[in-house]
């Protein structure tokens, strides 16, 4: 089965070590998204599995084959590139056929596959055209078709949607997701766009500085970020992170912020036993705030804070509150936001079960 695993991968460029002992397992049929900021090593990792670059040390397995030393064409992969990388002098059909001809498939089989891909991706009317006569979305579909006809076990995508406009991007996102649902190939998909990652992936690996910060399902990564980097990277608008000190008040864990504001942590979950007096970071997602809740319900912490600014983003609005001298972003219904004035004080509740607490020193989740 085409299960892909990276074992102790090291990649150096001269004196610079990009990947240092990376391990990662992708199950058969997984849609793995490698997500991270520019220069985190995600594209390098993709090039390594494709065989376009050599590993400095380590082993890459596809199924039970060790492909580390194989030529790119022998690895049973196909790849979709950010710039589409269509062969400019070949027609759409020629582009689809090139990879098949090299595999010495019988003509009927090649024709059948090309036909199949053309139907699947609605390329039929475009078969005679040259890439320069296609729109961006059409080029991307041809590029995907070219990857699909090879019937590769593993599909690689290198930021395939970043050159498309926003509307087309969301359409193509759906289309790729649908392809994965129907054909169920193993997909490794590199992007820096967290919306693509959240909507399409079955697994996300978040990378920074050549290391995998967290590997898990989209829900897991979003709800339980493993460290401060993941917490601040995933989510738009980003999670509010405020420094505080962990204290015990009458046997209850409490976070005390710089200006003395206290937030009860009763109901918050801790993965590790923690001592009082630790410096921590308290993470609160903008969309988990509840505005105008009356009274102090159990399991909620209440804050009363002055409004600095109100932003309308379209379907949502963001209210920014002054919390210990920093902005605290709260998502609100647009009509609620419209009634909010700068300078007035509003009370917001936050369910303590949804608090994300991190050690301020190590950055790890508590």
């Amino acid at each position: 089965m085409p299960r892909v695993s990276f074992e102790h991968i090291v990649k150096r460029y001269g004196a610079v070590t990009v990947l240092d002992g990376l391990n990662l397992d992708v199950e058969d049929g997984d849609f793995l998204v490698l997500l991270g900021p520019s220069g985190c090593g995600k594209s390098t990792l993709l090039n390594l599995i494709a065989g376009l670059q050599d590993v400095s040390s380590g082993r890459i397995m596809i199924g039970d084959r060790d492909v580390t030393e194989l030529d790119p064409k022998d690895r049973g992969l196909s790849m979709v590139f950010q710039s589409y990388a269509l062969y400019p002098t070949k027609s759409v059909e020629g582009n689809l056929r090139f990879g098949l001809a090299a595999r010495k498939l019988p003509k009927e089989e090649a024709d059948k596959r090309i036909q199949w891909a053309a139907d699947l991706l609605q390329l039929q009317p475009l078969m005679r055209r040259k890439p320069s006569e296609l729109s961006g979305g059409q080029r991307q579909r041809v590029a995907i078709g070219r990857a699909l006809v090879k019937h590769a076990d593993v599909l690689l995508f290198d930021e395939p949607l970043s050159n498309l406009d926003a509307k087309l991007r969301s359409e193509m996102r759906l289309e790729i997701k649908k392809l994965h649902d129907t054909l169920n190939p193993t997909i490794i998909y590199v992007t820096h766009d967290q919306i693509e990652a959240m909507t399409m992936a079955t697994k996300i690996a978040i990378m920074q500085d050549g290391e995998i910060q967290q590997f898990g399902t989209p829900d897991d990564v979003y709800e339980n970020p493993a460290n401060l980097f993941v917490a601040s990277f995933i989510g738009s608008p980003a999670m509010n992170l405020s420094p505080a000190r962990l204290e015990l008040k009458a046997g209850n864990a409490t976070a005390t912020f710089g200006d003395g504001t206290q937030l009860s942590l009763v109901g918050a979950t801790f993965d590790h036993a923690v001592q009082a007096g630790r410096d921590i970071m308290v993470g609160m997602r903008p969309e988990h705030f509840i505005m105008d809740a009356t009274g102090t319900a159990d399991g909620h912490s209440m804050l009363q804070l002055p409004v600095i600014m109100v932003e309308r983003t379209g379907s949502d609005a963001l209210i920014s509150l002054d919390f210990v001298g920093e902005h605290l972003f709260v998502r609100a219904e647009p009509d609620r936001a419209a009634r909010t004035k700068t300078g007035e004080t509003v009370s917001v509740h936050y369910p303590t079960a949804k608090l994300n607490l991190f050690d301020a020193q190590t950055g790890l989740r508590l």
Partner: protein
Amino acid sequence: MSDAGVMFPRKPRRIRGRSIAVIVFLAMAAMFFCVPLYVLIVTSFKDMDQIREGAIFSLPIRWTWEAWRFAWFDACSGLSCEGLQQGFWNSVVILVPSLIASIAVSMITGYALAIWDIKWAGPFLFLLFLTAFVPFQIIMYPLIRLTVMMGIYGSTTAIAFVHTVLAMPVLTLIFRNFYKDIPSDIIKAAIMDSGSFWRIFVEIILPLSGNILIVVLILQITSIWNDYLVGVTFGGLGTKPMTVHLANMVTVSTGTVSYNVNMAAALLTAIPPLVIYFVLGKFFVQGIAAGAIKG
């Protein structure tokens, strides 16, 4: 005629002092080439009687093709008096293999250096770059020994071989730089799709090379056709190119110099590259201006 819409008429541009200077300079530069060419052309149509009068700028009194005919069919080069036509065909026979060999070798070397991960590609490229500055005269004798050892000295093969060797540094650099501009994703895709050196070259790279091929074609046709030294040193008696015939024809130690025949012969020799340039000139400029591929 309606004058509606002409709301902000533009003044016709005046020629200013600076542009006059530029025009004068350009005109002078053009004269340097045009005046000798004019003399060449009019002389070739005169008969010797008029030439002896010495007025080199005057038009022919009687226009005649006689000098041209004589230069092509009857003029003597060394012992043979078959005219330039023999040299012309020799030149064609030299041109075709030289052209194909020099372009093919440099093209494939450039492709390999630009696209494939080759050991020592950097030092090799530097070496090529250095050899581009080595004058032909310096390596001429070793090359003669080499071709003698290869057993091809004095044949068309030797001339084609030497042309290929001499053209390689510059042409390889030209091709390599052109292929370097091909988006790397296209190459990566081709490597994953096929991985075959020749298949990628023939199916992907060659069809993209149109522009640069025209440029190199013109450069090479001009330099091979106009070459004298390689032809005279490496060619045998029967394989001397047109330029050698021309030189033999005009260097006469006894008797009168037939200026009109010499002029006609010089023009005949110069015509083929000119024709190529006029036919392909438009593409030449395009090819120099265009990079590899967009989109």
